[in-house]
């Protein structure tokens, strides 16, 4: 009997961990499409930033709700640099070099477009979520 209680406690714990994992995964999937507008907006407001600074800034603004993973951020930065939406410069900082990113003129336009798209998306989602049954 004691053993069976142990097993049920363990399976309850496993289910709880799984639920938390699924919720986090779903939240992250929702944020994923928003990463580009977030990044462009941050660069517009801060003029120039480096990778680690971007991850920390997002964590700070969202009080930890949104964590940009390194695996998502750097490929995005490199793609946007390739598309000439971002430009970069390398500067020495203390005992090591640091790569800063900033918006190009094309990036300024992309930021406005991306912010509008995100804002429209939020409005549409609100229409669905806030519409009351007649």
């Amino acid at each position, binding site marked *: 009997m004691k053993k069976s209680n142990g097993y049920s406690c363990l399976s309850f714990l496993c289910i709880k961990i799984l639920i938390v994992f699924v919720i986090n995964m779903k939240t992250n999937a929702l944020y994923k499409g928003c990463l580009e507008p977030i990044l462009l907006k941050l660069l517009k407001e801060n003029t120039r930033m480096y990778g680690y600074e971007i991850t920390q800034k997002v964590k700070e603004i969202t009080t930890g709700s949104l964590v940009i993973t*390194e695996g998502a951020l750097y490929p995005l930065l490199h793609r946007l640099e390739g598309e000439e939406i971002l430009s970069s410069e390398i500067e020495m900082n203390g*005992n090591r070099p640091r790569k800063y990113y900033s918006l190009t003129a094309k990036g300024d336009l992309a930021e406005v477009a991306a912010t509008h798209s995100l804002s429209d998306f939020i409005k549409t989602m609100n229409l669905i979520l806030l519409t009351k049954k007649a």
Partner: protein
Amino acid sequence: MKHELTPAQIAYLFSFCRKHFIPYYDLQIELVAHLAHAIEHLMGEQPQLEFEETLAAVYREFGATGFR
């Protein structure tokens, strides 16, 4: 308390990137800066941590495929 990595530790991070198949210098710069910041942050918060174990913990944040 702010912890600052030594030039030898920064050089170690560059060689760590090369060992993990990052041949491009500009990409190495970016990854070294990221690793160094995260390591300094953790070691500043927990001064008992060793450099190499902190590097391993920070590298795990890149996910199962590492830098790839």
